[in-house]
């Protein structure tokens, strides 16, 4: 299950929701808002998502992860809106019979989410400037088609 939320992520409640008597391992990943990116001091982040496709593509990612690393339960929540330093921007939890599937499925899910889901991150800098991550820099650095 994947969700988009504009409210603070309750990681304890999410972890509890994955309880499964057949699970011998649980692995979670939390992405936090960091104070720096590529030499710029970051004050806060703003996330935008196109929810219908975040959900449909996200469910595909979860299904692919299950096929590769059979897990029992998995959930993902991604924040949208304005986030302050230290806040949890993305949470992924996986419960599996053994630790290996839990670790690997969790890693697969976050890696795919970062490159496939229509989610955008705008950094607000200490200087007062702001910029969309991966956009202006791609263009500025002349990354070709």
């Amino acid at each position, binding site marked *: 299950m994947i969700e988009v939320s504009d409210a603070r992520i309750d990681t304890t409640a999410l972890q509890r929701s994955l309880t499964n008597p057949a699970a011998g391992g649980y692995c979670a990943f939390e992405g936090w808002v960091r104070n720096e990116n590529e030499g710029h001091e970051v004050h806060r982040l703003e996330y935008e998502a196109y929810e219908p*496709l975040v959900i449909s593509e996200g469910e595909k990612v979860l299904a692919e992860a299950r096929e590769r690393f059979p897990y029992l339960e998995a959930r993902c929540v991604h924040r949208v809106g304005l986030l302050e330093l230290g806040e949890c921007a*993305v949470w992924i939890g996986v419960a599996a019979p053994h630790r290996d599937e839990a670790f690997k499925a969790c890693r697969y899910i976050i890696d795919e*989410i970062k490159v*496939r889901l*229509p*989610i*955008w991150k705008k950094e607000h800098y200490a200087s007062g400037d702001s910029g*969309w991550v*991966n956009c202006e820099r791609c263009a500025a650095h002349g990354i070709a*088609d």
Partner: protein
Amino acid sequence: MKTITVRYFAMFREHAGVAEETLSLDAKTAHDVFEATRARHGSTEPNGHCKVAINDHMADWDTPVNDGDTVLLFPPVAGG
């Protein structure tokens, strides 16, 4: 000519100054739509790192567009 509704997200929306517009385009593929909007709004973002969806389904740049389609233009994503 085809009537195509184009939706812009994140940086593309800021460049275009609108979230959505309906255009009359001589476009065969999603890439043609992207090029037409790039010229229209002066965007320099190459399409290589961008994604496109048609009528709420992820598509490829060479996917054909039809009259009445809604094309969603996604600048480089950065979730997580």
